[in-house]
């Protein structure tokens, strides 16, 4: 990726250009020390002089922020402010007429910024004061008074915080004085420029120590650049938060959001005073010290998927390269390409007015439909793709270009969504919204309605991802929170489980449920993370830790098949592979070919596979397989338990025992009670030392009261402890305990259960036989079936 600048610049300005600003229509306004403001077209042609202010010079220029062209309300939004050296700022309309002049500071106004809603304007001046103004220029508050000139300010994502700098210090001050401010020493010498991106919530700063740094919103350092030749005068985030650019004397850098440099352009323009990205993030304008305004176009953007590479060659041309066939296709578009995305056999290209959907097998006939507004986010999954713009919000389309749904929820703010906090699977769309980033919302893809319950977490969620395997019943969500802990939860019955800590990034495999995560210097592959909900002890087996030199803050790029691509902090791409056996195993299990699966595990002799198989077998109640897998893992206790479960006479009892095995006693109890196996339920609770519940059940069903009391007594006798529970003490006096009667009752119950089972088993055996016949070739017959 790089910025393409024209080789020559012509400018009507005769002196240093101090600032530039884009409006929504894609026009650039530039103000200069020669007292003029000029309007430029997107292509870098000076269109006309907007106005001339003779009495003062300009320091900064900002357009009133309007999110969408369609949201514009009257002429109010068609204005911009300029800061002046005489301590005032001017509100100027689009046409160039001066609407208002406000005296703001002593000395010059150095910087000014609108908040994201456009309801407030912050200014910083040479006198070291930061002030907040209303939209119409009425003074609201003085936020800070420092002894130094305020060279840069930036609003926080929700417009409730303001970042400013004085000297070498960066300060985040909340607008409401109740909360605490964050302050830290950012650079070795004067900080000249700042930016804060609302989408990825990261802060950029640079100054006279010739470095730029990336911080998160709590002031933690994410990246520190090497030293440049000269002080850095401007930094600017791309609106999407994926990129930023940095300007110094004669150079403009394009960097990834994690800090490393994509490209470096040398320009003969003197000291670059200010950079500004266009609203759609495809172009950049720079105010140069020699009076030029430079226009850069973002080109050579590349997306890869399996064997296809799509490269943005010019603003309206894409080059498709098939690496295997060595074929090259050129796609030309009518207007500028704003977003493109390649995944799941399709390339979706969003231009300024159209959306084109190409299949990777046919580049000639795309599906095309018109789009209404600038696309903010484009995300593809197997069945459909998501398109986000500020006007329509979220929209789902199929690859035939048919509109699928328009998911909505309360408090949706489309412009703050990014790739990491939106996740798609075949049926479900998961979103962490900016306004409440501790919860995850699930939306149905085809209806657009909210489904399931919200996932509520105690900390801010940074990354979310949905598992991609086709069955939607046991679909899982993973997320990473602010503390870099990795959690997993099922979608439909939320139960958080912490899988790992200190995780930089995590990704699901694109076809099966394998989870990969990077933590410092290590890659962790969880072959069957669902094991957390089947048998937690298996997690240690299914986890594979690979040493790899990815360093800190590495991010995943893709995980197709067994190939995993990681982008290191310094921008290098790191490829790594995982064992392909797991894929085969999953395939067998999906097809219920258990004996093939066992054979595969035997062949591979890998505990990871055995553990996966054990977890999957337990999950699908395949006891014999589970027994074998546990035996292979040397988990003797588990094997015994499986044998015990197999010996149980009734199906319900087996179910309950398995639920107990999965650490869900409530579920087990409800199964037993539903089946009328009261004694088993009571027995289960006594086994779990859950005396109160056992007694409660006994009282409720008026059965086995004496049994409970007797077992309790036995237990106390063994442990040599006095009875302390009040209820038991009382009942001990009331109830007569007769051991023989109890034993008879238990035998009776057991007899009844096995009898019931035989009766019902008789009916089912026929069905099971048929079932067994259909399975003839591959899978083995469970022993239970043949004996019945």
């Amino acid at each position: 990726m790089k910025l393409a600048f024209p080789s020559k610049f012509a400018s009507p300005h005769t002196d240093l250009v101090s600032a530039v600003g884009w409006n929504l229509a894609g026009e650039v306004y530039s103000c200069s020390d020669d007292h003029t403001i000029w309007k430029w077209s997107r292509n870098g042609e000076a269109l006309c002089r907007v106005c001339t202010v003779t009495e003062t010079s300009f320091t900064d220029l900002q357009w009133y922020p309007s999110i969408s062209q369609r949201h514009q309300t009257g002429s109010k939004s068609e204005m911009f402010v300029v800061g002046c050296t005489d301590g005032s700022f001017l509100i100027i309309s689009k046409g160039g007429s001066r609407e208002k002049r406000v005296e703001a500071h002593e000395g010059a106004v150095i910087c000014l910024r609108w908040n994201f809603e456009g309801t407030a304007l912050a200014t910083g001046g040479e006198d070291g004061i930061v002030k907040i103004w209303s939209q119409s220029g009425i003074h609201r508050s003085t936020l800070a008074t420092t002894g130094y000139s305020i060279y840069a300010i930036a609003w926080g994502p929700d417009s409730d915080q303001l970042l400013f700098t004085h000297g070498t210090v960066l300060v985040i001050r909340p607008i409401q004085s109740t909360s605490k401010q964050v302050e830290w020493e950012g650079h070795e010498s004067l900080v000249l420029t700042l930016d804060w991106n609302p989408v990825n919530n990261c802060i950029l700063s640079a100054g006279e120590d010739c470095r730029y740094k990336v911080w998160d919103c709590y002031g933690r350092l994410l990246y520190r650049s090497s030293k440049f030749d000269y002080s850095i005068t401007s930094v600017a985030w791309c609106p999407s938060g994926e990129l930023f650019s940095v300007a110094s004397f004669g150079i403009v850098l394009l960097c990834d959001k994690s800090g490393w440099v994509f490209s470096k352009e040398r320009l003969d323009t003197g000291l670059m005073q200010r950079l500004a990205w266009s609203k759609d993030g495809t172009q950049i304008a720079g105010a140069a010290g020699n009076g030029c305004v430079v226009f850069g176009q973002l080109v050579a953007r590349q997306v890869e998927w399996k064997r296809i590479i799509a490269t943005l060659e010019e603003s309206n041309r894409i080059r498709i390269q098939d690496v295997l066939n060595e074929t090259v296709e050129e796609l030309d578009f009518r207007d500028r390409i704003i977003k493109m995305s390649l995944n799941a056999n399709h390339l979706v290209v969003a231009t300024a007015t159209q959306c084109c959907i190409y299949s990777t097998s046919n580049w000639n006939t795309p599906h095309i439909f018109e789009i209404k507004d600038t696309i903010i986010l484009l995300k593809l999954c197997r069945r459909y793709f998501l398109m986000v713009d500020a006007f329509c919000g979220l929209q789902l389309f199929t690859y035939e270009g048919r509109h699928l749904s328009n998911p909505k929820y309360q408090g949706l703010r489309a412009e703050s969504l990014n790739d990491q906090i939106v996740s798609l699977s075949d049926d479900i769309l998961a979103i962490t919204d900016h306004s409440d980033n501790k919860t995850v919302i699930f939306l149905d893809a085809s209806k657009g309605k909210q489904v399931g319950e919200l996932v509520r977490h105690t900390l801010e969620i940074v990354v979310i991802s949905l598992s991609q395997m086709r069955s939607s019943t046991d679909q899982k969500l993973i997320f990473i929170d602010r503390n870099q802990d990795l959690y997993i939860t099922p979608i439909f019955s939320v139960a958080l489980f912490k899988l790992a800590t200190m995780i930089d990034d995590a990704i699901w495999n694109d076809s099966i449920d394998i989870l990969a995560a990077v933590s410092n210097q290590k890659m962790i592959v969880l072959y069957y993370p669902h094991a957390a909900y089947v048998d937690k002890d298996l997690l240690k087996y299914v986890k594979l830790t690979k040493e790899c030199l990815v360093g800190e803050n590495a991010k995943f790029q893709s995980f197709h098949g067994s190939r995993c691509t990681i982008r290191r902090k310094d921008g290098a791409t790191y490829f790594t592979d995982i064992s392909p056996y797991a894929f085969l195993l999953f395939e067998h299990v999906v097809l219920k070919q258990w004996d093939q699966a066992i054979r595969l595990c035997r062949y591979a002799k890998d505990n990871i596979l055995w553990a996966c198989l054990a977890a999957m077998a337990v999950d699908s109640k395949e006891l014999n397989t589970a027994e074998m897998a546990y035996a292979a893992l040397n988990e003797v206790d588990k094997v015994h338990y499986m044998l015990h479960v197999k010996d149980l006479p009734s199906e319900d009892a087996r179910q309950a025992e398995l639920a107990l095995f999965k650490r869900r006693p409530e579920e087990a109890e409800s199964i037993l009670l539903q089946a009328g196996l009261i004694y088993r339920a009571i027995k289960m609770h006594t086994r779990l030392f859950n005396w109160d519940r056992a007694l409660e059940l006994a009282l409720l069903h008026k059965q086995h009261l004496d049994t409970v009391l007797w077992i309790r007594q036995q237990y106390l006798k063994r442990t040599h402890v006095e009875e302390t529970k009040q209820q038991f003490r009382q009942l001990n006096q009331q109830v007569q305990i007769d051991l023989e009667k109890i034993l008879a009752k238990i035998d009776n119950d057991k007899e009844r259960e096995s009898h019931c089972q035989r009766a019902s088993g008789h009916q089912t055996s026929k069905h099971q036989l048929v079932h067994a016949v259909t399975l003839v070739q591959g899978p083995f017959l469970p022993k239970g079936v043949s004996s019945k």
Partner: protein
Amino acid sequence: MSFIDIRKFVSIMKVLGYSHTISMDSFRKPNFELVADCLHWLMMRYDPTIDLDTDISVEARRVAFLKRATHLVLSGPRLKLNLRRLYSADGYAVKELLKVAQLLHNATMAATNNEKEGADFGPSLKPFDVKTTRLLVSDITRCGASLYAVLETEPALQEARSRATMVNTDMDEIERGLKEAITAMLESISASEQEQSSSEKDEKAMEAKVEKRKLELERSEKRLSTLHNVRPAYMDKYEALQKDLHDLFVTYSEKHRNLQWLQSQMEEHRLAEQEKLEDTDRRMRRLQRRLHEEELCILRGEEVNGSMVSAGSSEESDGEGTTFWKWFDGSSFKSILDPRAKVEARPANTNDRMIRKAPPEWIHHVKRLPETPRQVVSNTQSREVNSAKNRDQVKNGDDTKPGPPSTHQISPNESDISGDLEEGDDELLDMDGLDPKDTAEDDSTDDDF
């Protein structure tokens, strides 16, 4: 007001190539060292030969340094710097320094621009040629002369002019006329503008149309190319069949050729056979005639030998006839008739043809065979053939025999031929070798060859 100055100063100093970074906050507090350094650097940049003492350790020296510097600036580029402000070394000092820096910056900018543009007009200045100068000089004189002439007419014109101004003109009429003219002009202008705009619109429409057509063309070409690329389902089968057909045709043509050749061979052979047959026929007839004559002679009781000789010498005396005759004694001459009868009996028989096709080398080979085995063969054969011969005789009947068949003696020749008919190829060779002619030649004297 110092922010913008500092910003500009920083920018200009960087462009001029000042090696240190000047901080935006440099002059927040008085910073005389930096001011002195900048000033010294700027002076050096202005004129490297300047002698300027940079010692600023004490107050007096500082003042002296500034005095000297301001003096130099005043004497050189005629800039007046405020010494007091410089000495205060704060934001105002920057303003003073900026004056010098701006001067140098403008100069460097102009120089670089000149360098760039110099390339443009440099060559045009170079050829200062006499021709154009002379032309210009003559132009000047001519202009002077015409000016003089025009000025000379001035008094007369003045009179006319004054007269014209004296005349009272109707301003309204003139105004009206002018207005009319103006409106007409405006109308024509608007009409032409309209025309222009409409034509422009047309042009745009046409261009759009052309573009659209081009796109369409491109698309359909693309589609055409994809269609070209598509291979019909039956193609594989078709190609296989085509290949088969080709193979079949090759075999067919080969066979046809062979057949043709064989037929031609057959035809040739048949002709040769015919000729031979006729030849033998003729010879036989001659022989018959002679024999008849001899017989007559004998019957008449004349001397046989004499007539024989005379007959042999009289009739072109081909060696065959004579030797043949020698070989056979007169008693058995009748048997000679038999082969002819045989030949005549089976002209269509293919075996017969095959027999005659045998190449002459073989004949020679056979000729050289030792005497004894042949005789053995011929003896054994003669026995066999005897019966075969009888069979033949029975079959053919007597009608084929021109001569009297009453007495039947089996000759070796005859036995061979018939033997061949019954047996395989070996006998065939033998038979050939025992052809009446050849055997005659074998046994006769060598001079026949």
